[in-house]
């Protein structure tokens, strides 16, 4: 509460931001309550642990990372990909639909193979994140846009805007390690409570205390907390390629289709006067990654309508995102719907 009063007193524009977030506050607490009760029911159901997004698979991955000889990964990943290709039907359908938009004119049959490739990359991505966390193995990496990464490393407060692409989790740990800086990750909540707990613990362990995880359903105060962190010179990392939950959103266009993106990062950047660095961690081979940093986006504060300035920044972000997704469609792990149909857009 004190933090909120302090923030409002410090900058009147926060009031506007507060309005953005408090609109959804009640809805969020309702959702949180319903989630909690749903969680209680679901935890009672033992079989939920074995659902595609259940905690069993995460725990199994950790166990396998300790036990599996490294040369068994290529073959076992192929079979695990087969397994999830058939059992994770909703994710398969979403990736298939996304590919039809990203690669217009592509054949449906070939796109099924591309979905397999995306799933296979995902298997490698999460297993290599576990290897980094548990076995403390080192990874080779190449930085594309080193100038901007150095800027980011030295920045007094910045937002890293990224996507569900490549090894986002490993990237945060690598960044914290390379620049010896703390980073706050804002993640979409996992549908399974135990999986969420496991992931948070993993990320924090992987970052050796330099990575702090927040969930974007933590309540309206999260925005103030993040604003405070930015003003204290910290780096906040947010996934900005799709909406998860009932957050403040902004309409945008990707590949000529309507999407809704979170406007939180842009509002934060505008209020805190910090740049947004588009950053992606793409897998480039066996235990090898590319850290791709694009030119920072500045959210202006002109005398015009605030929404116009934000829309301009969102437009720039969408172009960056479009380019990256088109180049690396096989590493865009968008397993929840993102593109809107014409009906949904009305």
């Amino acid at each position, binding site marked *: 509460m004190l933090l909120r009063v302090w923030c409002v007193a410090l900058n009147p524009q926060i009031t506007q931001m507060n309005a953005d977030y408090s609109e959804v506050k009640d809805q969020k607490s309702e959702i949180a309550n319903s989630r909690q009760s749903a969680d209680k029911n679901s935890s009672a159901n033992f079989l939920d642990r074995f659902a595609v997004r259940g905690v069993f698979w995460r725990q199994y991955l950790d166990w396998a990372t300790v036990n599996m000889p490294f040369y068994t990964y290529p073959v076992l990943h192929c079979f695990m990909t087969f397994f999830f290709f058939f059992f994770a039907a909703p994710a398969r359908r979403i990736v298939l639909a996304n590919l039809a938009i990203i690669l217009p004119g592509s054949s449906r049959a070939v796109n099924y193979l591309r979905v397999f490739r995306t799933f296979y990359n995902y298997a490698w991505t999460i297993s290599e994140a576990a290897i980094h966390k548990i076995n403390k193995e080192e990874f080779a990496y*190449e930085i594309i846009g080193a100038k901007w990464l150095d800027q980011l490393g030295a920045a007094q407060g910045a937002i890293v805007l990224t996507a569900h692409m490549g090894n986002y989790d490993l990237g945060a740990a690598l960044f914290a390690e390379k620049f010896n800086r703390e980073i706050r990750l804002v993640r979409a909540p996992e549908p399974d409570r135990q999986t969420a707990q496991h992931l948070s613990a993993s990320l924090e362990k992987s970052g050796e205390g330099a990575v702090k995880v927040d969930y974007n359903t933590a309540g309206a105060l999260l925005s103030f907390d993040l604003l405070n962190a930015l003003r204290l010179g910290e780096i906040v990392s947010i996934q900005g390629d799709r909406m998860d939950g009932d957050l403040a959103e902004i309409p945008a266009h990707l590949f000529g289709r309507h999407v809704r993106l979170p406007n939180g990062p842009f509002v934060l950047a505008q209020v805190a006067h910090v740049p947004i660095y588009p950053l992606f961690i793409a897998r480039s081979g066996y235990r090898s990654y590319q850290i791709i940093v694009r030119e920072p986006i500045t959210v202006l504060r002109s005398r015009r309508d605030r929404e116009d300035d934000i829309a301009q920044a969102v437009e720039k972000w969408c172009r960056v995102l479009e380019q990256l997704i088109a180049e690396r469609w096989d590493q865009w792990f968008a397993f929840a719907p993102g593109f809107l149909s014409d009906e949904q857009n009305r």
Partner: protein
Amino acid sequence: MNKTDKRSAQFYFSLLRIIAMLRGGDATRAESNGFEAWLVGLTIYSIHYLFFATLFIPSNLEPWQIALLLVAIAFWIWLFWLPLLYINSVIIQALHMCGLFRTIPIRRAQSTLWGTYTTAMAFALLKSSPSLRELGAIWLVAVAMNLASAVVLAFSDAARSPGA
């Protein structure tokens, strides 16, 4: 402007490490070589596959039945590997309780057990048809050369690294 942080090729198996050393490369043990992972992984998978194929497929079946079984065995190997990992982990735990192999990482102890099973299967393949016998023989020769390389490396300072 781009930057890279790529190291020279490193290997896990002694035979490849000694070849790297003789060529002036880095002989420290590492699990970072994708080519090595694929090569050894696929070879082990092939030996297990052929072993079970010779074991399970009778010669008096129709061709379509043989084809079906060959596909089924491909998946059977995966199902075989999952409990194998678990059984190995139990064996390693038991060895640890007896005070054995406590200083080596679990996945290396697993690797030793995997090598042992695969070598046993390769031996069994020596009694099969000439082409299968050849694959079994290649594996056995590779294992022998790897063990000899391990002995050489044990006396060489070049290959020593913390935990190697």
